[in-house]
């Protein structure tokens, strides 16, 4: 089939929560507020942004772990929100998610073998001896020995646990994995092992990833295409080389300048942003970044009109009135 594997259009996820002293008032958190993108087959989109920008909610909405407020998600041409429970379950076999904390993602009372086997059985992909053999193959594929089958999560280090989580995701032979900060809880040397593993699996199985991370260096390493998210929206999206070499949005520029580089000979000027990110309950008028923006041409348009994404270079789109 042609067309992208994942096609997300104008997706919005809002939460209502009680507020005020006695919880009598409600307020709306616009976690994801109108996001569109596609991910092809054997493709990775990197999604970067800081705490509270909506990147995790976006990943969860795409898998329908959270209900959307508006917009649509098509997976392999099918409208995910139009699917009934049985069809959704069949579709879920093809979409998996890996979270940041592998310990919280594994049942502490379930052996690694059972955790990996569960998916096989739920989706009736294998049973009995065939399932046993498949579990060992999967563990081997992620670099865990067959002895892991009978062991419990607490017997493993963080990196090994994350390998087990990846094996469990692979058990159902998915086409797409949303990786939500998959290496953020791991040490440098172990994170490198897991990143290489994800790259190998993608090459071998033709997987597609949505790779969510706050770490810009990690995202540059894994993703040929990158989206930068701020306050529920994409502010810049394009080829990684473009975004990292020629960032156009003032927020992307600040973000990149803030990352410490492990080379004492590079001394770069950091752009220090004023203030804290605004709340997604009360986004500022006009451009969401405008209260912290350092762009020299910032003017009344920025505080009045919200900029849409516009193409500034081939496939490189930026939501800024002043970027050129």
């Amino acid at each position: 089939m042609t067309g992208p594997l994942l096609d997300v259009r104008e997706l919005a996820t809002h939460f209502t929560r009680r507020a005020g002293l006695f919880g009598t008032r409600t307020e709306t958190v616009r976690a994801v507020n109108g996001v569109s993108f596609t991910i092809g087959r054997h493709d990775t989109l990197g999604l970067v942004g800081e705490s509270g920008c909506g990147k995790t909610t976006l990943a969860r909405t795409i898998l329908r772990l959270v209900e959307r407020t508006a917009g649509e998600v098509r997976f392999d041409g099918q409208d995910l929100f139009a699917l009934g429970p049985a069809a959704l379950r069949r579709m879920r076999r093809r979409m998996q998610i890996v979270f940041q904390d592998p310990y919280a993602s594994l049942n502490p009372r379930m052996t690694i073998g059972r955790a990996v086997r569960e998916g096989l059985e739920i989706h009736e992909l294998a049973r009995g001896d065939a399932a046993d053999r498949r579990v060992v193959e999967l563990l081997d594929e992620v670099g865990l020995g067959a002895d892991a089958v009978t062991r419990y999560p607490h017997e493993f280090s963080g990196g090994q646990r994350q390998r087990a989580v990846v094996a469990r995701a692979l058990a159902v032979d998915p086409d797409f994995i949303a990786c939500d900060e998959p290496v953020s809880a791991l040490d440098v040397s172990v994170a490198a092992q897991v990143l290489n593993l994800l790259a190998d699996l993608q090459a071998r199985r033709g997987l597609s990833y949505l790779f969510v991370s706050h770490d810009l260096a990690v995202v540059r390493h894994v993703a040929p295409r990158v989206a930068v998210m701020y306050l529920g929206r994409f502010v810049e999206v394009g080829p990684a080389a473009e975004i990292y070499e020629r960032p156009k949005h003032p927020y992307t520029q600040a973000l990149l300048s803030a990352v410490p580089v492990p080379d004492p000979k590079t001394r770069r000027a950091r752009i220090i942003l004023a203030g804290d990110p605004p709340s997604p309950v009360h986004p500022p008028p006009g451009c969401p970044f405008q209260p912290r923006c350092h762009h020299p041409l910032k003017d009344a348009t920025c505080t009045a009109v919200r900029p849409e994404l516009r193409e500034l270079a081939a496939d490189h789109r930026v939501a800024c009135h002043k970027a050129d």
Partner: protein
Amino acid sequence: MTGSATPATPATPPGREARVPLLELRDLRVTFPVAGGVARAVDGLDLLVEAGETVGLVGESGCGKSVTALAILRLVGPDGHIAHGSSVRLEGRDLLALPGKEMRAVRGNHVALVFQEPLSALNPVLRIGAQIAEAVRAHESVTRATARWRAIEMLTMVGLPEAERRARQYPHQLSGGMRQRVMIAMALVCRPKLLIADEPTTALDVTIQAEILELLAELQRKLGMAVLLITHNLGLVAETTQRVAVMYGGQIVEEAATEALFARAAHPYTEGLLAAVPRLDEPRERLRVIPGQVPPATSWPAGCRFHPRCPYAWERCRTEAPPLLEAAPGHRARCWLVEEPARRTRADAPPGEKP
């Protein structure tokens, strides 16, 4: 390259031989009883921090870097044991021999500590101004009004907007970045000579981290204090420190001027760490990996502690534990390669590009 096998003592910068260093750790050993043995969390650590300088202490989880920080302040808890023969000297004074009362006067007053998670380090039911004032009154006999004034002055200095109003707020009313500013204000209100910052920005977003780093650098210039920065983040070390010590297995495995360490890592562990970090400035096809994992502190490997994971290891490494050897002036590494540099050839083909 002298290649001498004498266990080197902490390097003294030239021309400073006569001065007493601000902080001097010698043969620091900290153990914890654990099920099935004794964890040797810090196992013979030497470290010098001179007045006013910034030293990085880098390593991964379980290498002993945070325990080192706590041991300096004798805060290893009831289970932790600082072994006999360890020495922690602050301006020549042996902190391990001080009576409890005098030690309390050192903490916060001469040496202050900032942690990773500011919310758990602040008292949730006390207004932040009162918490900082309390820190002042713990160490100096001043009136409440003076202490409060000092608190507000310090909050202004760390760049908290509307310091007077904020001083009346509680920790939960502040953002993560502001809380870390409050922590720093509390740590520095008594003008310590040494600030130990243990992963001070790890819980913060990168743009907030940048603000806090600028702030720390500025305060360091103003107050002339030394900083011992404990972190796993090699980027932070490169950007903020003058000297760096790399820890592995409860020991320092390499120590050098920051530029020298990043230019020519002498220890294979440091080399591996630098190659394993994804780089923003120079993307690479494939990350080099340090195989295996850190062994538990209850059973460090015999010989060199890194040898099971080292791509260069040979027979000597499995049996003889290397001391810190001088690889270049002021640059020391706990590795036999310093004596036998010709062996720096990888047995395995360097994992290069994708097949």
